[in-house]
């Protein structure tokens, strides 16, 4: 029995049991290691991916329940062209150890697609589930404002 998935535009089949969290199918079966394991219980946000554009914690999402196209950090850019969120992340030199940053950016991208001009309070609410042990929050906040402005200007 296999599970059919679309990941970053590619049609893939998973041979893992349907209750396997999407995180581990991505990482251990497909070799897409950009999506990170932090807690396994949906409290750190490191594993955040998009399913049909919506941010989801892949550590708590059984692969058999995935009902849309999956985008991971590897698919956030358009080939070599970085997305607005990634460009802002580089401009603000956000990453320290970088381990949480795939999840942070996936969460931020989903926030910006719902809310093109988030306030500081909107950012706090949307990003609170994404832990960063290095403490990069001030730069994440600034980068989200920068990315929002860039997206609005088109």
């Amino acid at each position: 029995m296999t599970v059919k998935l679309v990941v970053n535009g590619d049609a893939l089949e998973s041979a893992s049991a349907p209750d396997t969290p999407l995180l581990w199918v991505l990482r251990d079966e497909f070799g897409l290691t950009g999506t990170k394991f932090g807690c396994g219980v949906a409290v750190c946000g490191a594993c955040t991916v998009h399913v049909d554009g919506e941010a989801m914690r892949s550590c708590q999402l059984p692969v058999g329940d995935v009902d849309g196209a999956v985008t991971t950090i590897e698919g956030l850019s358009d080939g070599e062209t970085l997305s607005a969120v990634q460009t802002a992340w580089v401009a603000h030199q956000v990453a320290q150890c970088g381990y949480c940053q795939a999840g942070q950016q996936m969460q931020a991208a989903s926030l910006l697609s719902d809310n093109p001009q988030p306030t500081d309070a909107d950012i706090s609410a949307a990003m609170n589930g994404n832990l960063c042990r290095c403490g990069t929050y001030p730069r994440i906040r600034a980068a989200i404002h920068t990315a929002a402005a860039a997206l609005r200007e088109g």
Partner: protein
Amino acid sequence: MGRVAKIARRTFLVGSAAVAGGVAFGVYKFVEPAPNPLNSSEGRISLNAFVIITEDGVTLVSPKAEMGQGVHTTWAALIAEELDVDWKDITVIHGPPAKAYYNSALFGMALPFKDYKVNDFQQAMREFAGNGAKLLSLQMTGGSTSMRDGFERMRLAGATAREVLKRAAGKRLGLAPDALETRDGQVIAPDGRTLSYQDVAVEAADINPPSVELRDPSTWRYLGTSLPRVDMEDKITGKAMYSIDVVLEGMKFASVRMSPRRQGMRRFDASAAKAMSGIDGVIDMGEGIAVIADNTWIAMQAVEAVDIDWEPSLYPDTTAGLMQEIEAAFDAAPNTVGRDDGTADADHPGQELLAEYSVPYLAHATMEPMNATALFTDDALSIWCGNQSPTSIQSACAQEVGFEPEQVTVTTTVMGGGFGRRGEADVAVLAARIAKKRPGVPIKLTWSREEDMRRDFYRPAAMARMRGVVNAGQPVAVDVSFAASSVILQSRARPALTPFTVEQAALSGSDPEGLSGAHDQPYQIPNYRVRGHIVPSTLPIGYWRAVGASFGGFFFDSFIDEMAHAAGRDPLAFRIDMAREEHAPSVRVLEAVGEMSNWSAARSAGRALGVGFTYSFGSPVAQVVEVVEEDGAIRIAKVWIAADVGIALDPGNIEAQLTGGCLFGLSAAVMGEVTFRDGEAEQSNFYDYDALRMGAAPAFDVQILENAPYIGGVGEIGTPPAAPALGNALFALAGKRARTLPFNQSFSFV
């Protein structure tokens, strides 16, 4: 002769990564050359290699682990500054375990100087003592020493490489080297002819390097500016390879459950685990079990499904018992006297203050859980592991599988946080133990977050007894005693993995590091004594961001604040006065943070400021925290930081380290606590061991000063002043002094 691309035989093995077609350059021996760790296939390069020139540019070999502190970027800038290469042509890789990469600064810090009073003679002594690190193979990233260690050596590496390249080019062109210039990887003759570094690298490697003079800082192009990090793009595109991301042909996935009480197992029953599908084996690990499976998730589920009866812990099995063990150490004579100015124990006229403080055990909780990949064959072991100490991993893994260290290859990857945890070799040894059971099969061992919490080497809990005397607005005496286990002594005595015995834990010796943040503060107090009582405990403890100063700074600076209030003085002015005659750079950071925060201006009701100051790792740091009461809960609204790092090599990165270090300290101060029951840590994941999140993180304003005569540490210095600054602000707001961390036991936070 010819361009390097053609010299395929000169391929450098750096760990398991090969840099093909390159020529190595390095900094020269100090006393005796340590064996060159970069094996060329000719085995003839006699330099300690830090620089490899390849067809594509320049590869720099960093012995320093990139944990997120930006060390690779600054390391590259130090070399590039002298070597004259373009920023975009530089690649940085982690070096293999080798004596050539000894950490001289870490070793030098162990000398008993008042660090802030270091003079030229002492600085020379410190560098000399650093030679000892080479003898001990101390290749370790920690103690905020990376830049103190690399500052001279890396510029020398760049400068000597440049000079031999110029000499080789001069020979080709028939010109004296002094007539030549270098720019962007080219040697340029006065008549405009150019030779690239690649063109002359092979000949240059055979030239004996001349002695070189380092460039004057006023001519620096890279150093002193905020550079784009060399690892940034990989980290934001998901391409960066942490050790948890290692993928090898035929690899299997493993997880472990080792004794949370740090002793062995009485018995275990793995039948439920073995019945799960996707299981490839359950392994008796002695002090626990491992499961090999088709994916990491199955392995993690299966280790939890094994029924295990653990031996009891050797250490007291509750938090209360552990705190009693700490308190009992006060009954014995102190092991360490860190400072003893005047007569602190005498009766001095004035107002006497007595206080007891305590801090809990803390976990590291690096964002990337502990992991390592191992491949065992008949005569070789390969380890992939993000780590802060490759030489100790190499020797511990060799011992585990019965090999010589030379048979063990350690590849150090970037890491998802270190904070001291990745100086331990335990996870690599476990991976080696599993891999030895499956020769020829690469095994990736990943710990669950729960395993990561219950098998940590905790930041020690500690207690302090403080006595102070103030008179007529002046500090007269401060007499401080700390009780805590010694991280330095324990980590030297403790085996990498097997349980720590009572005999091993009965440590003798002294430990000034455990008094950091208190005995080494740049204050003139007529009677100033700081003593330490080492707690012999078998509970594993370890390095943590700023370790000693992370609690010593809290105890000492909070008590200084108490003394200021008792003396009826402004807390900021009180500190400035004590530092005035002792250390000008410290005065400046205190004044700066006062100006930045508009310290003397009145705040509206429900809003208050507190100042914290700690000198650590060679750098004074002052922080002012603003707290605001919002519907009965407290918000940390803003933090102003002023730090003096001597020479600010990369201000953007230093700012990130200061704010990150402060948030790390604030998280611990607000909510960090590991407690024990039945000999096991009670916390297991981020829901019960959390840190500040975006919504609770304050805004920051940072000023970096350069008045100190020597370069100071950066990665840890933001942490120590955070807890006292917050506690002092809470006192200013509520009139209540909380002397026990975490503060959420005494206050509620948003």
